[in-house]
């Protein structure tokens, strides 16, 4: 059964895809919501079951449950290959875990054309799953773009006043950069050894890893790939689409966008960039690390001066992503493990932040921190949750943020002391703007706007407790995650000898 007729990556891909298409034809908004929630929970269940089959070393047959390949375009050497390794498990789990949370947190919201909204959301989920399980460069590219198109419609249709313009900027940025990656894919493809007799070259990931590119070719193609991933993350000079889009998008879209979609860029670097172009990475790592560290400090400083809740979270996200980028290019075991863990942590934490920001905005109608105040007296549950989330975001010990950031800083320190010192300034800055936000929003005196704020709903309470539980568990016992991703990290590091 398992492994012969179906495999986990396929299930993770097809469940959201098929339910996403079905949902377009459901009329009643209530049924749509329940069906979407049901679908996302089903995906989560599959993902959790798949986590029981990760031990390939002791059970070689588990590998067949998680890898599958179908003939697709034999004459150009592309097959529909999907599979999961440690990093794949981690990110598919993050995707599967986030969607039910997002749906539950926004369960009370009424979207116009709910069927289209939830259908597109599930298609985004399918696209993301595809990116995380693709084992063929062409399949990877397909899903890379496919995640973008429903996202484009989601952000343009539902959101703030300037959403169309802002989303289009995002679309053009990512479209140009991913087309550049496409040229890179073609170029590497033409230097790969064949896998079957039908074609001279192959798009299979292992062939890409063994492509014969000399140093100057690597250096050129490296930047083509880097552009796509750097725009998606986004790393410092490519970030200008991000704050505007986060501000203008509607609540659940931005959760998916910042929680999971940016991980596509980080994932792409770890899965494709580092193993294919080790020489180019070694040559260019300093300049990219400098870019990342400038990005961390720049974003933190801008976050300090922001007054809009959404923009503070957006800029703090750029700072965190910059740190992850630095962790990737420091490329030692500690920093890469830190990046792996932080991908999960950042996904959970930022979704939590958006949920709270959304609750505040829905209850008061404003996002300016100077106009809010005294919410602690009105809703102590929300305050407790929010403070834990903020502390996790700053990276305080016993929260998940601490472990990931600690590993990344240690790894960066191993690579270069001074870079680590500069990057560490961001911890202080992040504590400043985050705590400033907490202080202004939750403490102080209530005013006419915050006076009538009530407590939060059951669905929101449930979602936030799940997240807070995850924050604390991952903060105290991150071992299983690190164990899961160790193989992937070892594989990546083997290329750098």
């Amino acid at each position, binding site marked *: 059964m398992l492994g012969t007729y179906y495999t986990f990556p396929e299930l993770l891909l097809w469940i959201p895809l098929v339910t996403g298409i079905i949902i377009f034809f459901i009329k009643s908004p209530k049924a749509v919501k329940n069906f979407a929630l049901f679908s996302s929970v089903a995906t989560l269940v599959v993902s959790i079951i798949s986590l029981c089959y990760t031990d390939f070393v002791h059970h070689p047959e588990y590998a067949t449950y998680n890898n599958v390949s179908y003939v697709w375009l034999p004459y150009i050497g592309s097959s529909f290959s999907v599979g999961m390794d440690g990093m794949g498990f981690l990110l598919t789990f993050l995707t599967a875990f986030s969607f039910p949370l997002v749906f539950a947190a926004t369960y009370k919201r009424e979207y116009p054309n709910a069927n289209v909204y939830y259908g597109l959301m599930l298609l985004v989920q399918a696209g993301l799953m595809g990116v995380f399980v693709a084992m063929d460069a062409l399949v990877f590219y397909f899903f890379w773009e496919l995640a973008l198109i429903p996202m484009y*419609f989601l952000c*343009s249709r539902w959101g703030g006043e300037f959403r169309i313009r802002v989303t289009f900027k995002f679309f053009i940025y990512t479209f140009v950069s991913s087309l550049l990656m496409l*040229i890179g894919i073609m170029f590497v493809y033409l230097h790969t050894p064949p896998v079957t007799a039908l074609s001279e070259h192959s798009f299979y990931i292992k062939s890409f890893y063994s492509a014969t590119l000399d140093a100057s070719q690597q250096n050129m193609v490296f930047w083509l790939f880097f552009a796509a991933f750097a725009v998606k993350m986004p790393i410092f000079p490519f970030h200008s689409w991000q704050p505007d889009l986060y501000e203008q998008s509607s609540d659940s879209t931005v959760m998916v966008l910042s929680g999971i979609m940016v991980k596509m860029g980080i994932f792409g670097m770890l899965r494709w960039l580092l193993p294919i172009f080790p020489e180019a990475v070694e040559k260019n790592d300093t300049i990219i690390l400098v870019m990342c560290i400038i990005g961390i400090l720049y974003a933190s400083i801008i976050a300090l001066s922001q007054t809009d809740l959404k923009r503070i979270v957006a800029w703090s996200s750029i700072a965190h992503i910059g740190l992850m980028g630095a962790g990737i290019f420091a490329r030692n075991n500690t920093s890469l493990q830190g990046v792996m863990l932080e991908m999960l942590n950042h996904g959970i934490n930022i979704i939590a932040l958006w949920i709270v920001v959304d609750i505040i905005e829905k209850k008061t109608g404003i996002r300016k921190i100077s106009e809010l105040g005294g919410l602690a007296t009105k809703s102590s549950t929300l305050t407790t949750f929010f403070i834990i989330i903020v502390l996790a975001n700053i990276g305080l010990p016993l929260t998940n943020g601490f472990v990931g950031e600690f590993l990344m800083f240690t790894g960066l320190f191993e690579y270069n002391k001074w870079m680590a010192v500069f990057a560490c300034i961001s911890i202080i800055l992040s504590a400043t703007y985050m705590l400033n936000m907490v202080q202004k929003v939750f403490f102080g005196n209530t005013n006419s706007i915050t006076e009538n704020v009530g407590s939060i709903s059951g669905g929101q309470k449930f979602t936030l407790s799940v997240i807070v539980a995850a924050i604390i568990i991952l903060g105290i016992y991150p071992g299983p995650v690190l164990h899961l991703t160790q193989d992937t990290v070892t594989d990546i590091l083997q290329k750098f000898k």
Partner: protein
Amino acid sequence: MNAILISALWGVVMMFGGVFFKKTSTPKYWAIAGIIILLAGNMLEFFGTQIFKIDTKGMLRFDNFGLLFNTIAFACTLLFFLLNGRDIEKVGENGSEYFALIFFILCGVSISSSFNTLLMLFLGIEIMSIPSYILTGSDKRNLKSNEASLKYFLMGAFSTGLMLMGIALIYGGNSLGSFYINMIELGTGPMPVMIAAGLVLLVVSMSFKVSAAPFHFWAPDVYDGAPTVFTSFMATIVKIAGFIAFIRLFKVSFGIIQQQWQMLIVLITAATLLIGNLTAVFQQSVKRMLAYSSIAHAGFMMFALFALNDTAQEGLLLYAVSYSVATIGMFAVLVKMNDYTIEGFNGLYKTNPVLAGTATIFLLSLTGIPLTAGFTAKFYMLLAAVKDGHQVWLVILAVICAAISAVYYFRVIQAMYFKEPAAGANNVMPVRSSFKYLLVIAAAIIIIVGILPSLVVDWLYY
């Protein structure tokens, strides 16, 4: 051979039928029947059955590539007749003759896809062009249509002259005294001067026919002035047939000295991509925007000529399918609109979701988004160019142009989905449900070919 004769005969039948047909809707059914017979005849030949056995002394050579292209062209014409049959009737009083002219064009298409001498090339191109001049001017009382027709005719006649001149020079520079394209004497080392001059003239005249820059000036005005239904036909099938002839000529006759003329093609390609895409951005009318975008797509199809390898041939066939179906579909939607400006599309999603949904798929395909045929076509073209390996900057330019094309295609999508329809006015004419089903089928073709391009490409190696 089957296709050439059937299309010519059916053209004559349709022309005389105009005298006998009583009802205005009769020609349409005859035309649809004819195109199905034509398609069947071509398929028979593809599978090895020749109905007519005529010795052409090797002046025509039927290979899989040409026959497969014929099949695509005829199938697209069938789709065009089914979608636009009623609109063709509405253009003027002589419905039957419009269909007859289209059959003559198809005859020219079949010759252009199978010529083996320069004379047949000339015949094929001219048989395609002359009915196109007439179709452009078929809206007799519309001055814009008249102007477009005259412009097209004058410019077309000029480029035909250049082509003849080129053919004459190549014939004269050829000691074998032969028009056969596979027997042109190229010598070793640099080309003889007369051949080189002939080659340049052929490049110029063929670039004119496929509206590649800097010989594209006629295209926007002609496509804009012609009745919209015929623009749809001319911008797709006629143009791609031009490309098939172009690549056939240059692959067979000048393929081995490609290094010597490749730079010329590189410059034309780059200019076409830039001019087509940059000008399309500034258009307010969707019809004119599609006219410029057809120039931009000509730039992408020029990659087949630049690379001239197997992947390029496969890519050109995929481009023929994706571009024709998407453009015919998009024009079919456009014909039903009351207002051809982009604002005319505002809120189409609310007033007619099927039209908006299928138009979105057509536009996404034209942009080249994965999962649509447009992506696979562009992918094969770019792959062919990267494989050639000479001018990677050209590929990067093409990619940037593809991104620019997203700007104008997505403007229509934005209008359809995210803008409110103008109050009171209805932006779309009433459409039959069969029309909607056909559009859905066309969109399905786009997606199926997008997922499984081998459905088209594999026939090349049948």
